[in-house]
C-alpha cells in the first residue's frame, strides 16, 4: 500500500495540476502533494514497516510473464525518501521563481516524481523499464520548455543519449528474460537466469550503456554540463539530486546480483573509466567561471567515486554508496539553491563578476559554506561518512589496482577542495562590486530549505547509523548474491 501510494500520489496530483490555471494555487498544490508523499515515505520508514504494506503485486501482462510488482526494500526506502524529500525542498527554495504556464511546469515535475519513485520501487524488469523512460519524458519537456537559450538542442542531445542507453538496456533485459527458467520479468527469476560467462559480458555492456549515460560516467558525460546549465534550476536540482542516482541504483539492483561474473570481470575497466572521469571532471571544474557548470562537473566527479565504489563489491563500499547517494542528493540540491538565488538576484552566474556577498548576505554565506564543506566531505558532515566508507571499500577490494584507485580517487577530493573553496572565496569574500553592492540576504523560503539541508548534513554526519540501519540488510543480500560466484 505504501509503495503504491508513493507512485500514485505524485501521478494523480500531477495530472490534476495540469488543469489548475491559477499560478499561486498550483504552486501550493504541488507543495502540498509533495509533502503528503514525504509523509507517506516517512510512515513507510517508521510506522508501517511490515512487508505487507511495503509490497504491492497485481497481474499485468501475464501472457509474457510481466506483472505490476513493486517493493520497498532498504535501498528503495532510502532513494524514495530522497525523492520525497527533494521535492518539498526544491519547491520551497524556488517559491519565488515564476514560470510561464506554471500548471504545466508543476504537473510535469510531479509526473517525473512518479516515474522516479517507480524506478526505485519496481521489481519487475519490464516495469522498471517503463518507469525508467517515464521519468525521462517529463524531464525532456521541462528542460526544453523552461530552459535557457540553447535549451532545445541541449535537451535533445540529453534525450537522445539517454534513449540510446535505454533501448540497449531493453535488449539486455530481453536477453536475460529469454534465459530465465520461468520466462518471467520478475527479479527473482532474473536472479536464477544462469548465463554463461560471455553471455553475461554481452548483457553487462548493454546495461552499462544505460546506467553509464545516466550517471554519467566518463566518456558518456558530455550531455550533462550543458543540460544542467540550460535547464531551469528546479529541474536541474531534481536531475542532479535524484535522477542521476537512477544509474547507480540500476547497477546495484539489476546488474550486480543478476550478472555477477561479468560484473566482477569488467570491474577494473569501469572503475578505471570512473576514476579517470573523476580527475578529468575535477580539473575542468577548477577552470570553470560559470557556477552552474562548476557544480555540474563536481557532480560528475562525485558520481565517478560512487561508480568505482560499486565495483569494489564489498560491504563497506556498498554501504558507503547507498548512504552517499542520499547525502550527495541533499548536498547538491543545497548548492543549486544558492546558485539559483545568485542567478535570480544578480542576473549572472559568472564567478568573476561576483564578490563580497558575505558582507551583504551573511545567512546565505554561512549556510552555503556548510553545504560546500559537506560537498568536500569534511568530517562531521554527512558526505564524510559515505566517502570514508567508499574509500575503505575501494582500498580493501579484491582488485590488483586497489591502491592506485584509492590514491587517484583521493586526489580528486583534494581537487574538489580547490574548486569549492576557490568558489567560496571569490563569490562570498573579497570586496563587493557594482553587481553585488545592492545585495540583500536570502528570504525565508531559501533559509527554510537550506536550514533543513544543514540540519540533515549534521545529523547524517554525526549519526550516519540512522541511514546505515536502513540499507544494511539489502546491501548484505545484494553482496551475497554477487559473491556466490567468485
Amino acid at each position: 500500500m505504501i509503495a503504491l501510494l508513493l507512485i500514485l500520489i505524485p501521478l494523480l496530483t500531477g495530472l490534476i495540476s495540469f488543469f489548475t490555471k491559477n499560478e499561486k494555487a498550483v504552486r501550493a498544490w504541488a507543495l502540498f502533494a509533495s509533502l503528503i508523499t514525504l509523509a507517506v515515505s516517512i510512515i513507510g520508514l517508521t510506522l508501517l514497516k511490515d512487508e505487507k504494506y511495503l509490497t504491492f503485486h497485481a497481474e499485468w501482462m501475464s501472457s509474457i510473464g510481466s506483472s505490476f510488482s513493486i517493493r520497498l526494500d532498504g535501498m528503495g526506502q532510502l532513494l524514495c525518501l530522497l525523492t520525497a524529500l527533494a521535492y518539498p525542498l526544491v519547491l520551497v527554495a524556488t517559491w519565488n521563481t515564476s514560470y510561464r504556464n506554471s500548471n504545466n511546469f508543476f504537473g510535469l515535475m510531479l509526473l517525473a516524481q512518479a516515474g522516479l519513485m517507480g524506478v526505485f520501487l519496481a521489481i519487475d524488469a519490464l516495469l522498471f523499464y517503463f518507469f525508467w523512460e517515464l521519468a525521462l519524458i517529463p524531464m525532456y519537456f521541462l528542460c526544453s520548455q523552461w530552459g535557457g537559450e540553447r535549451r532545445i538542442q541541449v535537451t535533445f542531445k540529453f534525450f537522445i543519449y539517454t534513449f540510446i542507453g535505454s533501448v540497449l538496456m531493453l535488449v539486455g533485459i530481453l536477453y536475460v528474460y529469454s534465459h530465465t527458467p520461468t520466462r518471467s520479468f520478475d527479479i527473482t527469476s532474473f536472479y536464477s537466469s544462469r548465463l554463461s560467462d560471455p553471455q553475461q559480458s554481452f548483457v553487462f555492456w548493454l546495461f552499462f550503456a544505460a546506467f553509464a549515460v545516466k550517471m554519467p560516467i566518463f566518456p558518456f558525460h558530455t550531455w550533462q554540463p550543458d543540460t544542467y546549465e540550460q535547464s531551469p534550476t528546479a529541474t536541474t536540482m531534481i536531475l542532479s539530486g535524484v535522477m542521476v542516482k537512477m544509474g547507480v541504483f540500476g547497477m546495484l539492483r539489476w546488474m550486480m546480483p543478476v550478472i555477477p561474473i561479468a560484473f566482477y570481470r569488467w570491474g577494473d575497466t569501469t572503475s578505471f573509466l570512473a576514476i579517470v572521469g573523476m580527475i578529468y571532471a575535477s580539473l575542468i571544474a577548477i577552470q570553470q567561471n560559470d557556477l552552474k557548470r562548476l557544480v555540474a562537473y563536481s557532480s560528475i566527479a562525485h558520481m565517478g567515486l560512487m561508480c568505482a565504489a560499486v565495483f569494489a563489491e564489498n560491504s563497506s563500499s556498498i554501504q558507503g554508496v547507498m548512504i552517499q547517494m542520499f547525502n550527495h542528493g541533499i548536498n547538491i540540491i543545497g548548492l543549486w539553491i544558492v546558485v539559483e538565488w545568485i542567478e535570480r538576484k544578480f542576473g549572472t552566474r559568472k564567478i568573476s563578476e561576483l564578490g563580497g556577498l558575505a558582507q551583504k548576505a551573511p545567512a546565505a554565506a554561512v549556510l552555503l559554506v556548510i553545504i560546500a564543506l559537506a560537498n568536500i566531505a569534511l568530517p562531521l558532515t554527512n558526505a564524510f561518512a559515505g566517502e570514508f566508507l567508499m574509500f575503505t571499500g575501494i582500498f580493501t577490494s579484491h582488485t590488483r589496482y586497489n591502491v592506485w584507485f584509492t590514491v587517484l580517487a583521493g586526489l580528486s577530493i583534494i581537487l574538489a577542495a580547490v574548486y569549492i573553496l576557490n568558489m567560496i572565496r571569490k563569490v562570498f569574500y573579497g570586496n563587493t562590486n557594482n553587481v553585488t553592492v545592492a545585495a540583500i540576504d536570502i528570504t525565508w523560503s531559501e533559509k527554510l530549505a537550506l536550514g533543513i539541508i544543514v540540519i540533515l548534513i549534521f545529523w547524517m554526519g554525526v549519526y550516519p547509523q540512522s541511514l546505515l540501519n536502513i540499507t544494511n540488510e539489502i546491501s548484505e543480500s545484494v553482496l551475497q548474491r554477487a559473491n556466490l560466484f567468485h
Partner: protein
Amino acid sequence: MNALILSAIFGVIMMFSGIALKQKSIIRNIAIAGLFLLLLVNILEMRGILLFEIDTRGMIIFDRFGLLFDSIAFFSTLIYLLLSAKDMEKTGVNYAEYFALIFFILCGITLTSSFKSLLILFLGVEIISIPLYILTGSDKKNLKSNEASLKYFLLGAFSTGLMLMGIALIYGSRGTFDTDSINHITGESSTLLIAGLLLLLFSMSFKVSAVPFHFWTPDVYDGAPTVFTSFMATIVKAAVFIAFMRLFYETFSVFKGQWQLLVGIITVATLFIGNITAVFQQSVKRMLAYSSIAQAGFMLLALYAMNGDGEEGLLLYTTAYSLATIGIFAVLIKMNDYTFDGFNGFAKQQPLLAATLTIFLLSLAGIPLTAGFLSKFYMLKAAMQAGNNNWLMIFAVLMAAVSVYYYFRVIQAMYFKTTNAKTIEVTAGFKWTMAILASLIILLGVFPNLLLYWFYF
C-alpha cells in the same frame, strides 16, 4: 465471409449513390454507416454467426487471425473516415467514387488476410492495388498526382508480374496453389520452387516498400493527395504486411533456412535506409513516407522471427502504427504548410490536438506507455526467441533511437517554437475523435491483452 460480400456490395452502392444523391454529407454518412455495419458483421462472424454460407473449396479460410485483422482494418478505416472523410471533398469532383474504391480495397483486404490459395492472394493484392492507382491519381489537375499515379502503376504492374511468375513457378514445381500442400519437403527442395519463392518475396517486399524495392514509396506517398496517402500508408500497408506474413508462415515455413538470411538482410537495409533518409527530410509528409519504410523494417522482424510472438506482435504493431499514423495525417491534411516549420507554435493554438499528436509521435518512436513501445517490444521479443541474432536486435533498437530524431522535430516545432501563422480550424467532433484515438493508443500501450485477447478467445 460476411465482410467480404458486404464490402463488395457497399462498393457498388457507393458507386451508384454518386449518381442518385447530390448532397455530399449524405454520401459520407452512408459510407460511415456502411463501415459500421462491416465492422459489426465481422465481429459477429468472430462469434460464429455467419450471414452467408458459400463453399470456397478451401481456397479461403476465415480463421481467427484473419478475422481479427479484418476487424482492426475496418476499425482503422472507420476512424480514418471519421477524421478525414470531409477532406476528400477538396481532392476532386467524384466524391462518392472515392468511398466506393475504399470499399473495394477493403474487399481485397479480407481476401489477403484469409487466403489459403496463392490464387486468392494474387486476387486480393490486385483488388487492393488497382483502386489505389486510381486514388493516387485522383487529383487530376495536379501534375505531381498524375506522375505519382503513373509511376505507381508501372512499378506496381511490374511487381505484380513478378508475383504471378513466382506463383506459376511454384505451381510448376508442386502442381497446386494450396498453401498447405506446398508447405512440406518432398525430397530435395527444387530450384523451381525456390525461384518462385524468391520472386514472391521480392514482389511482396515491393508492396510493403522494403529496401531495396522502396524507391516508389516517397514519390507516390508525396504525390498522392494527402487524404489518400494516409489510407495507403496505414491500412493498406498493414494488410499487405499481414498477407506477407501469412504467405511465409503458412506456405514457406519449412523452407525457412533458404529465405531467413535474405529477409534478415532486407530488414537491416530497410531499417537503415528508412531511418537515415527520414532524418534529412524537410517536409513532414515525406518524413512520414520514409517513416513508413522504417516502420516496415521493424515489422519485417516478425517475418524474420517466424514464431507465435511475431504473429501477435505484428497484429499489435500494425494496429499501433496505423492508428498513430492516421492521427498524424488527419492533422497534416488540414495544414497549409507541410514543412516542419508549419507546425511551429501549434501547441499554443491547438493545445489538445498538439497533445494528441505528441502521443502519436511518441508511439511511433516507441516510448513506453504507448502502443508503439509494446509493439516494438513484441517484435524484439520474437526476434530474440528466434535466436542467434543479437546484432540484428541491437541494430534495430539503435535505428529506433535514430527515429526519435525526426519524430521529435515535430514535437519541438509544436511546443518550443513560435509563429504568427494562422491557426487551423477544426470541429469539436474532430478533436474528440483524436482524443479517443490517443487514449486508445495509451490503453493498448498499458494493456495490450485487450487486443490480443481476441486472438485466443
